[in-house]
């Protein structure tokens, strides 16, 4: 499941909670959630997948893969619950070097055969117009099953227990006192759970099933968070995650009598900070220190998106756009210079605390870290199996083996596999430079702690803070401070943005922080001569 999908589902739950603001649950009949969903035997599911693959091969495919996906969503509020189950199957096949893809919500052997043949039929048509046959980077067949780390599967817990737990937690929340004092409207807690099952069967012998489970306890509040890019407007709703985990134990064992209250008050306070005295930031060019969180945002947009091979090879030219890096990724290997030897970046499949981590990617490959940039020079790309082949000439020239690193996003069953956006880790300096050390070298400048970028973590391709070639990025500043004579001083008011020219920004990087300053996978950086503008100014 993509992060985006989970976030969207969480938002749905938040909406449900907001729609039903009053609550006083007493008890409910005992039902296991799993009783309410059709029980599929995993062998049967795999058999359907095998049949689909076999049909495609029989129809002439040299390679075929079937994906069967099943998604269960549950939202429990104290006055009720909502559930949804969706499942389906897709087949992707290569015939004569062309791709075909067919999908449907029906899980039957007959449908499997139909989809296998349909995918092959499409591939035959497409191959007529594809001069270069599609090939895939080699990978050993994967077999087995994998589940999110959990002691108690949330889908085996009765709704009654979930509701009782929720009621108990909610009864301890001090939201009434807090909301009265803050003049905010606080809605009660809700439980949201998502479970996705992904089965992959390929003609190369891969047969895997992965089950991802996520459950969270949320509180919705109705006043909202300041939006620094729209200073005159407040978002109408916010959501606080009190706790998230893979298993029911993360909710059941949550100490809501003490820790929960403390966390809750902390979270509430973070959304309702008293106004801080700020001063306006004049537009102009500044020496800028970016904190780790701000640096991470730039890495996602200017390295993460820009190194997406679909963008580089013009495959998304008609939609999202292209990349400022160029069009020939094989030639970039070991050659493209970002402009600063201080910049070394490794792509990783997910952050260490990512609850959506899983064993295999969407092509049955175990993901590995990729050194993307070393001392400013582009080294490699996080790829899918097909994308890896586009680098074959470059790998050969450099004497490196042809391989994929397993970055096919674990997506929905009706979506063609696409590259996942990795997490990025920036290599710190070896000299132990701290954030304070960086600021200490600045006579007059700006420390930027955080930008405000909607969708940065869920759907960065549509963050739209950058143009369609990622050459120019305008990043609204959320939290920033004045630097005077090497020390952090007054906070600046919001309403300004940092302009980053992709081909120039790393040339302006003067120093970076050491290991101790690393956070969010990034280290702070000192940039010279960076333009800060008022994004709301018209010509």
């Amino acid at each position, binding site marked *: 499941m993509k992060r985006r999908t989970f976030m969207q589902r969480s938002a749905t739950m938040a909406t449900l909670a907001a*729609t039903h603001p009053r609550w*006083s*649950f*007493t008890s*409910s009949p005992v*039902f296991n959630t799993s009783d*309410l969903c*059709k029980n*599929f035997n995993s062998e049967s599911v795999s*058999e*359907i997948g095998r*049949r689909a693959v*076999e049909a495609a*091969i029989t129809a002439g495919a040299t*390679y075929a893969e079937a994906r069967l996906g099943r998604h269960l969503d549950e939202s429990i509020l104290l*006055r*009720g*619950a*909502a*559930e*949804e189950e*969706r*499942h389906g199957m897709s087949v992707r096949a290569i015939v004569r070097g062309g*791709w075909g*893809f*067919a*999908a449907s*919500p*029906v*899980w039957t*052997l007959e*449908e499997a*055969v139909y989809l296998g043949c*349909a995918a092959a039929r499409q591939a035959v*048509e*497409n191959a007529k117009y594809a*001069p270069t046959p599609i*090939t895939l980077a080699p990978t050993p067949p994967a077999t087995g099953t994998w589940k999110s780390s959990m002691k108690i599967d949330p889908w085996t817990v009765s*709704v009654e227990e979930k509701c009782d737990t929720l009621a108990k937690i909610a009864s301890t929340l001090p939201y009434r006192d807090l909301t009265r004092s803050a003049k905010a409207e606080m809605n009660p807690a809700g439980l949201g759970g998502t479970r996705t099952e992904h089965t992959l069967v390929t*003609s190369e*012998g891969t047969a895997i099933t992965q089950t991802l489970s996520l459950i969270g306890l949320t509180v919705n509040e109705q006043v909202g968070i300041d939006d620094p890019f729209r*200073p*005159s*407007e407040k978002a109408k709703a916010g959501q606080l995650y009190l706790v998230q985990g893979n298993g029911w134990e993360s909710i059941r064992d949550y100490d809501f009598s003490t820790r929960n209250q403390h966390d809750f008050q902390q979270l509430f306070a973070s959304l309702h900070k008293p106004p801080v005295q700020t001063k306006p930031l004049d537009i102009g060019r500044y020496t800028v220190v970016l904190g780790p969180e701000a640096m991470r945002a730039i890495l996602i947009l200017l390295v993460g998106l820009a190194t997406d091979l679909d963008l580089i*090879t*013009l*495959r998304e*030219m*008609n939609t999202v756009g*292209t990349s400022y890096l160029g*069009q020939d990724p094989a030639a970039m290997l070991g050659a493209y210079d970002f402009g600063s030897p201080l910049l070394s970046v490794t792509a990783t499949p997910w952050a260490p605390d990512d609850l959506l981590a899983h064993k295999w990617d969407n092509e049955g490959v175990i993901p590995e870290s990729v050194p993307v940039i070393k001392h400013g020079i582009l080294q490699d790309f996080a790829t899918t199996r097909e994308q890896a*082949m586009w680098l074959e000439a470059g790998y050969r020239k450099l004497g490196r083996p042809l391989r994929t690193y397993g970055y096919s996003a674990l997506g929905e069953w*009706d979506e063609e596999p696409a590259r996942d956006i990795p997490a990025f880790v920036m290599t710190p300096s070896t000299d132990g430079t701290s954030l304070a050390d960086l600021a200490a070298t600045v006579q007059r400048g700006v420390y930027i702690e955080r930008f405000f970028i909607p969708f940065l973590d869920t759907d960065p391709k549509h963050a739209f803070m*950058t*143009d369609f*070639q990622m050459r*120019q990025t305008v990043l609204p500043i959320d939290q920033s401070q004045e630097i005077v004579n090497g020390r952090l001083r007054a906070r600046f008011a919001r309403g300004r943005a940092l302009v980053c020219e992709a081909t120039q920004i790393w040339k302006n990087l003067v120093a970076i922080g050491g290991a101790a300053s690393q956070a969010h996978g990034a280290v702070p950086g000192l940039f010279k001569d960076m333009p800060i503008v008022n*994004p709301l100014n*018209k*010509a």
Partner: protein
Amino acid sequence: MTQPMTHLRHPSVSSPSLHNDTDPGKRFLSRDECRAIYERLRACITRGDLELAIDSKWTGTHRFSSNIIRTSRDVRNNDVEVSRNIDDASYRLGGNQIDDASLRAMVRRGERYLQMSSEVGESMLSHRLRGAPEITERHGHTLPPAELARQRQALSILANDEESMTSPTLFFESTYSMDEEKRAAAIEPLVAPAKRAGLLAGGSIEVIAVGSAFFSTRGSSLYNPMTRASYSMTVRSPDGSASGWAGVDWNDWDRIDPSHLANIALDKCLRSKNRVRVEPGRYTVILEPQAVWDLCKDVIMLDSEWVTTMSIKHQQRHPDGMDFTPGSGTARFHEQLFDPCVKISQDPMDPDCGFNPFSGGEAGHAVTWIDGGALVETPYDRQYAIQRLHQNTGLLNGPAHRMHGGTTTVDEMIATSKRAIVVTRLSNVTLLDKNSWLLQGYTRDGTWLVENGTITKSIMNLKFTESPNFVLANIEQIGPTQRVFSVNDGAAGAVVPPLKVRDFSFTALTDSV
């Protein structure tokens, strides 16, 4: 590196015990099939109201880039929504399965849901659900008896009096017949001219067929099939110095002229070469219809947030609103917001942008939202219409809109301009400030400078910071309407004119192609 699947040549063929009523390969459900599902579902329940909404959908897509077909897909899916209302409790559940076991599971979940609701002695209010139980208080204050009476009357009418629906023809065999073979074959001739010119073409053809159904125990039996075809294409020079685009969507594939569009994209690319820099600033702009849509779609689609932030809160007209005080929040209702030539309307029977005439059992009607540059109507649902306006029908904001045009062609706009910028389309448009609806974004795929009545130069792309409110109030000329590419914007169709607008704000240059 692919390997033959020798190990799967002779697999075990024992049948898993899975059953589904759908025929393999069936693209979408017919009226009779939807009704049969409704009858099966109805047989599972013993009392209360039942509503069933089904969208069964088939999508066929071909994508190409660098003059080569890259991917194609053929996807079917269902969106099934079951709503029930028993006494004072209601629920809504969703899924994509239509077999008996799944339908029974949905009913069972719902029954559990209702049991939970009855235990707490409160009703579950489903947002905008027809037949929703009455609301007896707002903001903690009990509604006055007259208000309650009006509400009860409205609920009674809603429960017993179905609206009449129009029947637009939205299904076209020309679109439905675009299978993978035809789609693939259609791409080659579109790409060929670009290939011959040494350029790179990328784009997509997508066809959709949807069967939308709504059935209820109150007697609704609605079904409407619809098709939609879209085609768009970018042509770019290999060195990344020039780019052109064209695209459109229609319900009927036969109304798309792909070759013509391919030639437009190619021509724009060729004319985009040798771009020069112009200084950012305020310019008269000639926005082609696609650029007008990209910039003004929130206004044209009557985006609810846009309506709200224009202070046209119409709370007294909104059934789920927070305020029953007549007259509040209507400061700009009927005020002159835009140039008098601005008129925006919808009509499910519009031959150029019709739409499915029902949503959740409620009828969509022909409405003029903006007329003479003033907002003259805002959307409200039927319950509110009955309750507050003593009308039997609401005004549903449909998914397809027409912005009415004039007679001045783009060529005439150019010929009458001393200095202006022609814009093909806009990209990466994002909202900066809600109060003024200030947007930022970039020109893309063909931008030119007009001097003394003729296009003199291809120019580099520009970043703009501008509001559609300002643009629609500063129109100099308006041209004949045309259908635009709106399929990615959540619209069922849009018809939009080109505009010549004064004092448009460009704030920066960009090197992007």
